[in-house]
């Protein structure tokens, strides 16, 4: 017996010692290709990050400057000032094109509301109410009074001390401050005598706001009545990303394999939902302050995993196996899946192998390109807004794949059969949005999506996927 052992060992040792076999063609090239990215992976990653950062910077810069340009054109007081005022200030080359300083002359006139004007003219120690001033704005206002082009220097400088005392603890805080103007009579007279005097007009909240905090309309939500805001019909674009938990709802009686009848209870027991991701570009159109239509282009993934997938001989071929899930069937050649399709050995003396048993988690993914049409309604409207949304989200199947997950590896198995190319989802959600500025906002939108029709066909089980997602993103108003 010992000799037998030595003989067989020695036989193999003799023949295989120093055994060579020509290395496969292309093996070196594959090796080389795999080694190169590792060497260059890091710089390449940085290059990509840098490129992305530059693109983002350019995009936001363009948007910002475009936005600023537009604001300057539309809202600077200088452009709204009568020609005679501009003609007076321009020759001095001091406050030309300076909207803030330009504002001062007018605003000082306008900052005395009609009612206050009456008080000023009638009383020596009258009072007027003013919204708070940021220290910079105050200083600039005061400084502007020193410009030679503005002839009312004396009167304003006499108000300097009083105004300076109105410094606020927080420039973001909007409160009402009462400022004493001991020389209001003189100021009023000076203004009246000024050649550039224009008819006093009632100061609108927008103008007051511009005077106080500049053109940052982000604060306008808090002090400007909604009715006075600009028309809110506008487009906005953004980018959204979300983790997605998806699973499905089953209906129907089940279906038969060559060995057994498989019912939905089995699948409900063995299959689980899975986490994936979705993302895309959003495009919104606001009809008014509250109602908007949200659309865009999104790539979303749904799917499920199965710890104990049903496997049986394919009726179509003796060499193939069918892996059956509630969503559909995947046909594979088990010989190519040695890692997961383990051949049972009933008896080691028996040279005819038994059936295959499946080991590993079977995962099915379906990727859809969706174009949602969702109506959003702002229930709460402020810097923090709360949105209620509902609508449809049809999608086209762009990727259908399945794989075994074994020891952290993915062993691709092919596609799930009889999946319809289109999905019709209903969508509803409740989200919040926070306005960073006039143009920019961020959002968090939990969404629930449910397929209105089964996505599979030719099966005794109807498969309705649903998903819960938490979209977060950024939106830019055009």
């Amino acid at each position, binding site marked *: 017996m010992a000799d*037998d*052992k030595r003989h067989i060992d020695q036989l193999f040792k003799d023949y295989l010692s120093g*055994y*060579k076999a020509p290395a496969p063609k292309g*093996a*070196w090239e594959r090796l080389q290709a795999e*080694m190169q990215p590792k060497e260059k992976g890091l710089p390449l990653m940085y290059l990509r990050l840098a490129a992305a950062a530059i693109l983002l910077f350019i995009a936001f810069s363009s948007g910002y400057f475009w936005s600023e340009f537009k604001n300057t054109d539309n809202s600077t007081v200088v452009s709204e000032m009568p020609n005679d005022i501009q003609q007076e200030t321009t020759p001095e080359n001091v406050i030309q094109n300076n909207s803030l300083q330009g504002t001062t002359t007018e605003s000082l006139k306008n900052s005395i509301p009609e009612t206050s004007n009456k008080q000023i003219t009638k009383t020596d120690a009258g009072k007027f109410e003013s919204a708070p001033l940021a220290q910079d704005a105050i200083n600039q206002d005061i400084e502007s009074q020193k410009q030679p082009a503005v002839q009312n220097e004396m009167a304003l400088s006499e108000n300097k001390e009083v105004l300076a005392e109105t410094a606020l603890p927080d420039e973001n805080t909007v409160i009402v401050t009462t400022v004493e103007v001991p020389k209001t009579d003189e100021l009023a007279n000076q203004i009246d005598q000024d050649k550039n005097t224009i008819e006093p007009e009632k100061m609108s909240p927008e103008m007051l706001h511009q005077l106080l905090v500049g053109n940052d309309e982000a604060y306008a939500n808090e002090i400007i009545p909604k009715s006075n805001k600009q028309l809110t019909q506008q487009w906005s674009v953004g980018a959204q990303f979300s983790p997605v938990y998806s699973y499905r709802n089953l209906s129907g009686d089940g279906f038969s394999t060559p060995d057994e009848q498989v019912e939905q209870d089995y699948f409900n027991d063995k299959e689980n939902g899975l986490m994936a991701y979705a993302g895309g570009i959003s495009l919104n159109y606001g009809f008014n302050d509250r109602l908007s239509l949200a659309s865009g282009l999104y790539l979303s993934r749904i799917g499920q995993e199965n710890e104990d997938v049903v496997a049986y001989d394919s009726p179509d071929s003796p060499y193939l196996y069918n892996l059956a899930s509630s969503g559909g069937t995947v046909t594979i050649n088990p010989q190519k899946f040695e890692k997961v399709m383990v051949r049972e050995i009933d008896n080691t003396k028996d040279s005819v192998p038994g059936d295959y048993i499946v080991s*590993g988690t079977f995962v099915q993914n379906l990727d859809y390109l969706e174009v949602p049409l969702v109506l959003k309604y702002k229930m709460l409207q402020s810097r923090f807004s709360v949105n209620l949304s509902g609508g449809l989200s049809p999608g086209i199947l762009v990727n259908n794949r399945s794989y075994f997950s074994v020891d952290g590896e993915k062993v691709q198995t092919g596609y799930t059969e009889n999946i319809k190319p289109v999905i019709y989802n209903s969508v509803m959600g409740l989200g919040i949005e926070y306005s960073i500025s006039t143009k920019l906002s961020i959002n968090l939108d939990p969404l629930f999506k449910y397929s209105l029709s089964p996505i599979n066909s030719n099966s005794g089980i109807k498969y309705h996927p649903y998903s819960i997602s938490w979209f977060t993103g950024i939106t830019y108003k055009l």
Partner: protein
Amino acid sequence: MNQQEIIKGCIDRSNKAQQALYNLFADDMFGVCLYYSPDRSEAEDTLHEGFLKVFNNIASFKGEGSLKGWIRRIMVNTALEKFRKKSPLYVLDNDGYETAGDVDRENIISNISADDLITLIQGLSPQYRMVFNLYALEGYSHKEIAEMMKISEGTSKSNLARARAILQKKVKEYFYISSKTHNG
């Protein structure tokens, strides 16, 4: 380029040196990978992964022993790692086996080749194949094999016996001079 220059070049990630090293040992190592794998496809994977390890760890080669032996150990270890990843999936029945009797070298047909024997080895279950290779071809003890494969010594012995029995049977079945001729 001599071996020292090749090693130094590989440490410096010289593509030329890496290719020289590959050309020098690829055929030998592919031979090793073939009898540690169930098929050619997995042997290619093992060769690929093994050489990646060689290039990534060449700096750790201290020159103790031959470079070829060092690379061969990496290939065997790579095959072993692949086996370990799969091992829980394989169902083995170690109960009973029948021996096929003595393998008499004189009775083996003369044109048997290493390729034929590799085919037989590849036909073994992964665990039998691994134990047989490590014991019979690499010269490891059962204790060492047990540690490497995370099995008991008893299992290693049992697997070796089973592998031998299967190989003996198949050698006789396919490569012996036919019993008629032999007996006659």
